[in-house]
């Protein structure tokens, strides 16, 4: 069954489940959330410098509305894990993730956060942040360029804007 029909079915199912008003409000909210992520500053290693470069005048993350880097997880809804996750910092990252309020997403930036990267066989590195927290978007690269960080965040925007597609992928798996 082609994707458009499937999406059509999902929309109908969401509509029936929530009723006309709430479904539209949800769509509006997801649109708003997608266009204004507030990332918590979880810069660990070299990818953090590329994340800073993304926040600076040349690449300028504020063209997309994601430039508000909040230091405390209480005011953030997106965690960009930028850098190597060592086993010593793993519980701390898990706790910071838990302390973020509910509509939250995680972007694993860089091959260290994806699967341990060049240090995967080291005794003190966690092979991938998805072992401890659910990750939504993986961005390859060591360190990924700011443009690929934006591309990854745009994929997250798609994912947030239409959760039906997410269910599609889950069922599709």
């Amino acid at each position, binding site marked *: 069954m082609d994707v458009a029909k499937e999406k059509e079915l999902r929309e109908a199912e969401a509509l029936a489940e929530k009723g006309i008003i709430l479904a539209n409000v949800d769509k509006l909210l997801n649109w708003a959330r997608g266009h204004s992520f507030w990332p918590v500053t979880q810069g660990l290693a070299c990818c953090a410098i590329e994340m800073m470069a993304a926040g600076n005048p040349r690449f300028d993350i504020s063209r997309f509305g994601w430039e508000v880097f909040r230091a*405390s997880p*209480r005011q953030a809804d997106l965690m960009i894990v930028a850098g190597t996750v060592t086993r010593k*910092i793993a519980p*701390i990252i898990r*706790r910071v993730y838990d*302390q973020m*309020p509910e*509509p939250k997403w995680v972007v694993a930036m860089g091959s260290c956060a994806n699967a341990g990267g060049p240090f995967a066989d080291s005794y003190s590195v966690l092979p991938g942040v998805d072992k401890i927290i659910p990750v939504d978007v993986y961005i390859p690269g060591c360190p990924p360029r700011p443009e690929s960080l934006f591309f990854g965040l745009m994929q997250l925007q798609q994912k947030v804007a239409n959760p039906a597609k997410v269910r599609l992928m889950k069922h599709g798996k």
Partner: protein
Amino acid sequence: MSDNFAAVGVLLVFAMIFPIIMVIMPKILAPHRPDREKLTPYECGNEPIGRTWVGFKSNYFLYALVFTAFDVEIVFLYPWALTFRKLGTFAFVEMFIFIIILLVGFWYAWKEGALEWM
């Protein structure tokens, strides 16, 4: 001086209702799933250490006192500043005596070092 207080009334009502709406909106729309881990105090990701209920330094309390004293003074100045032309010179002189008295208080606070930052 226009005295249509209706505008002030509308502003007052709107000023009360608008914050209430802003408070209620998240309760309706935002998902609310507290769990034990989320409710622990945030200390850069670590286990919270040390007692939070700690006797803080007394200088902080002095600043609060000095501030409220002169804030109340300004509250008295506002109505006077709006209408002192109609009240004539007596109120004018009266207010300056009031300010001078408070200046003495300010000088004393300064001398006693209440304004020194730790």
